[in-house]
């Protein structure tokens, strides 16, 4: 196995409040230009894994207690989240987390500030995002808190794209959205991947959906990687669905329950 120069997560453990073990040795890698799916039930550790990568665990009083995360050969755990964004790793949080009192346009602009672009470059980036999400342009001066869930998800993704990332950590983009909107958003993700060369690490519960778009997948269960493989192989396997239903946990992990905060 060669060492990846892109994102490498090596056997990490995450503790919340120095007591609750949420991840128990997760390893994964994202190759440049790929879409990688992170699957698993509620509480399996998907969000924690993403936040560990983007260094946002501190806000939930969690920390990396073992293992290492390297981004292009550089250990990330000493970097400020803003430094990571500047280096091209950005997270779209679960539940969208738009700025409700800001307009759609201000939301997007806020994503552009990290690179300190010129006024013109910022305007160009904004137009770029509007070209992917024309609906946002129509509603650019609407206050974001008053827009629909689908529009908010588009704002969240567009805002992250304003940082000009090379890797986007996308947490449950389908949550609470109508299937037709989810389909639209996944197609945009695929376009961004193909046309802009942006890589994605996608946490999702909807395995059938995400495996259609992903190249590779990891299934998390109780803070560990239970299964991994190419998306095509995972989609064929019957037991992937079982991890969501908990059938596979009965024998092995039941004796050692792990509490995971759902955030």
């Amino acid at each position: 196995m060669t060492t990846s120069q892109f994102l490498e997560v090596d056997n990490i453990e995450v503790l919340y409040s120095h007591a609750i073990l949420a991840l128990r040795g997760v390893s994964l890698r994202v190759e440049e230009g790929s879409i990688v799916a992170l699957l698993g039930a509620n509480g399996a550790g998907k969000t924690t894994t993403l936040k560990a990568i983007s260094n946002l665990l501190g806000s939930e009083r969690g920390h990396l207690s073992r293992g290492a995360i390297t981004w292009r050969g550089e250990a990330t755990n000493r970097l400020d989240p803003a430094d990571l964004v500047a280096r091209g790793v950005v997270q779209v949080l679960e539940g969208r987390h738009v700025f409700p009192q800001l307009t759609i346009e201000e939301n997007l602009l806020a994503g552009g500030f990290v690179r300190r672009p010129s006024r013109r470059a910022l305007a160009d980036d904004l137009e770029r995002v509007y070209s992917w999400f024309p609906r946002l342009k129509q509603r650019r001066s609407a206050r974001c808190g008053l827009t629909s869930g689908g529009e908010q998800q588009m704002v969240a993704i567009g805002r992250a794209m304003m940082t000009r990332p090379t890797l986007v950590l996308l947490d449950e983009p389908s949550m609470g959205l109508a299937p037709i909107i989810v389909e639209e958003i996944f197609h945009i993700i695929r376009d961004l991947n193909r046309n802009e060369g942006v890589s994605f690490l996608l946490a999702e519960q909807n395995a059938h959906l995400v495996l259609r778009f992903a190249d590779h997948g990891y299934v998390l269960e109780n803070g560990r990687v239970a299964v991994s493989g190419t998306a095509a192989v995972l989609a064929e396997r019957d037991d992937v669905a079982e991890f969501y239903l908990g059938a596979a946990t009965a024998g092995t992990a039941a004796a050692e329950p792990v509490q995971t905060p759902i955030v």
Partner: protein
Amino acid sequence: MSFFVETFIGGLLAGVMYSLVAIGFVLIYKASGVFNFAQGSMVLCAGLTFVTMRDRGIDFWLAGLITLTIMVAIAIAVERVVLRPLVNRPQITLFMATLGLSFVIEGIAQIAMGASVHELDLGIVDTPITVGEVQVSQFDLVAAATAGVLVIALSIFFNWTRVGIALRAIADDPLAARSIGIRLQTLWQIVWGVAGFVSLVAGLLWGARQGVQFALTLVVLKALPVLIIGGFTSITGAIVGGLIVGASDSLAEIYLGSLLGGSVSTWFSYVLAVGFLLVRPTGLFGDAPIERI
């Protein structure tokens, strides 16, 4: 009738003085969701530093510049020592920290510069000018104009500059702001620095009006109804709230004072504020929480 108008205008202008203090609260509340109890101490500290230097014969503008530097230094120190370790704690924790901070700032200012009352002369002539039948205090007009300039400058800052938008983003959702690379620490230092500048302006005007003394920290208490009426998140609200408080206080004093035995102005605005809390808890201009159903 001219007596009514005179009282009314006098009240409005007095209210602007409260607004000046209230703006400092709004700035920090907008950016970090914290009610900064230390705002009054910052006003005092700014006034005291300035007047001490003036007493030593330092030039007006130089003294202003040095005071501003000290206020910004305090802002940075507060972020480093107080806010940064407490990030992600409940808001009440941060509020308590600012409460403690107010005593620290007051104490240090007192040790360094003494507790006596200083006269502060800003060179503003305070002879009333007569407009029609109404007499207006010239000093109050200067104060009102200053507040007006401040409000316009801050509105431009918050609505049109990158730092301003980033500050509003942090106020909305700090975690999301961090996730897209906005540096909370830097922006907090900026906003506390701006609040320091606003306290300097308030400290100078209040100091010139009342003398620089420890009672200045008490203007905080009068800023509270201003904030409740105008809304904690709006600079415009701070101004309008100040006008309402000032006008209603002085009118109530004149027209209700004789019925209720005087000193109505010390409590009237609080009653008004309670009324607002019942009817419109976000204040006139505050951001109502947006909830999708």
